């Protein structure tokens, strides 16, 4: 018993104890037989020759006891008692074994036993629920896959592929009557070869388109041709006043562009300008156009 005080004097607060961990507010004891986990005079297993703890191994709890009689035999120092699985019975067993022992140790043993049983219960409950499976990632594999994905992205040329697919669908007429592009409509008419009642002028328009298909493609660049086309249309409708012709042109052009919703393409403003430009042209080139028509 005397040596306990000496040991505590040495290890406890003054000199070095390898099990001691110090924090700002408190010190802890890392010794596996420690009852409370704190570094105290009454909790230190080294500085108390009569000591007891409760520890669990593989789900079963044991009571470990150390007495001064066995102090010179370190291999036999700790006596181990298996506690029953029943909580109350185990508490009684602790009381039995630690009868006549200091109150502090008895109380702390029971507290520790309670805590241990609680966490064992929680473990059993958790294993019944879904476990999160942790899969190790190989860094090399991850890097390789990332690199391959980037290369695949470049090779895919997604925008082009999507555009091509959409144009294919347009050609194969999956969109039906929604889009009315002139050449597209012309192809449709050719294939079906039905004079539809939508307008006979449409059919005549298409016939004229047949002659002037190339000019129509260069619509943006060669304004004079446009005026010719519009003149032909006007010829069909047999309207002489220039103002009415202009209005009709605007209408027909607007019809052609009615389906370009949303963003107006760059050609929009330039196309819109043409009717206004043609005002000047018409007066000058009308006779020339008329001779062409005839």
């Amino acid at each position, binding site marked *: 018993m005397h040596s306990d005080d000496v040991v505590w004097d040495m290890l406890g607060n003054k000199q070095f104890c390898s099990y001691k961990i110090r924090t700002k507010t408190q010190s802890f004891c890392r010794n596996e037989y420690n009852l409370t986990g704190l570094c105290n005079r009454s909790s230190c297993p080294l500085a108390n020759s009569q000591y007891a703890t409760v520890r669990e191994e593989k789900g079963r709890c044991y009571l470990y006891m150390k007495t001064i009689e066995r102090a010179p035999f370190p291999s036999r120092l700790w006596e181990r008692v298996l506690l029953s699985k029943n909580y109350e019975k185990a508490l009684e067993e602790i009381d039995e074994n630690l009868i006549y022992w200091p109150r502090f140790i008895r109380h702390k043993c029971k507290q520790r036993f309670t805590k241990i049983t609680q966490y064992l219960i929680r473990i059993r409950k958790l294993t019944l629920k879904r476990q999160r499976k942790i899969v190790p990632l190989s860094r090399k594999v991850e890097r390789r896959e990332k690199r391959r994905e980037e290369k695949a992205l470049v090779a895919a040329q997604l925008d082009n592929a999507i555009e091509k697919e*959409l144009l294919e669908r347009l050609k194969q007429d999956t969109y039906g009557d929604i889009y009315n*592009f002139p050449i597209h409509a012309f192809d449709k008419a050719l294939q079906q070869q039905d004079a539809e009642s939508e307008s006979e002028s449409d059919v005549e328009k298409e016939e004229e388109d047949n002659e002037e298909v190339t000019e129509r493609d260069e619509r943006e660049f060669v304004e004079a041709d446009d005026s010719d086309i519009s003149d032909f249309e006007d010829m069909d409708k047999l309207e002489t006043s220039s103002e009415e012709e202009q209005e009709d042109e605007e209408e027909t052009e607007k019809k052609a562009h009615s389906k370009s919703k949303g963003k107006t393409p760059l050609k929009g403003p330039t196309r819109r300008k043409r009717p206004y430009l043609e005002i000047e042209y018409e007066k000058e080139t009308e006779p020339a156009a008329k001779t062409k028509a005839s």
Partner: protein
Amino acid sequence: MAAGGQGPGVGNMAAAGAGPERGAEPPAPERVLFPPTFSVSEIKNKQRRHFMFVRWKQQQRKEKLALRKKRRKEREALGDKAPPKAVPKTIENQRVYDETTVDPNDEEVAFDEATDEFAPYFNRQTVPKILITTSDRPRGRTVRFCEQLSTVIPNSHVYYRRGLALKRIIPQCIARDFTDLIVINEDRKIPNGLVLSHLPDGPTAHFKMSSVRLRKEIKRKGKQPTEHVPEVILNNFTTRLGHSVGRMFASLFPHDPQFIGRQVATFHNQRDYIFFRFHRYIFKSEKKVGIQELGPRFTLKLRSLQKGTFDSKFGEYEWVHKRREMDTSRRKFHL
């Protein structure tokens, strides 16, 4: 010979130039003269070595250009009889032929597809209804991604999982008439996995998801996707496995797209990576279309395809990605 004893470290132009030329014609048959090879890497001085290397590179380039010009001249000279241009080799060109590639006219495949689990969808007997959920405790990014995904896929609902087991969710979903279940797995605050399960008892596909971009991270994006049913584009699903995966994706969207909405969802398969994009398109003319990217984008890589609904322990796997066996060749793809 002077050629043999080349001055070390001397960028001797005469020697370097003369060496290979002299080596071309050995002087006498009795004394075999090895051509005095001189490689740039033997110069010990770094600056001179670098200089010599640059000059060598320029020479190579000049030779290559000359060769190309010559070839072009020959080609022009021949005119129509010129041999066809050599096609450069790409990985797609060199792809190892997969014996399960589906022939469009294959009857067996057509019959299989008429009787598999997606037949009711393709016969227009069922309307897709999709449940989107996540793994436990999703973080902000995943939540937002789920919301955006639900705007992209019509008739989809997002429900959060609060610790429920998938196996228990599935019967409830079937009872409430859901046709598909999407689970987005999250790791460290980013979504990285996707489980797509076709419900009544359809196949379950597990994908690895990468490169997730939310709408706000996409540059030059358009407005919010509207409620219209989008069109679906499935590119490059050639093999039998690819076909089934493609049909899985197709069955997520209702059969009749609303062309007024002008929206298109694309699943493009390239080298076993499936890229998902969501665009709005506009036909500027009959030969030109403009597309604008709207919704989220992500890439998927198939990890496993299971026959029944989700069951990791007892499920019957139709296809599992085995790295050791399947990733041995760079030219072999499975989708």
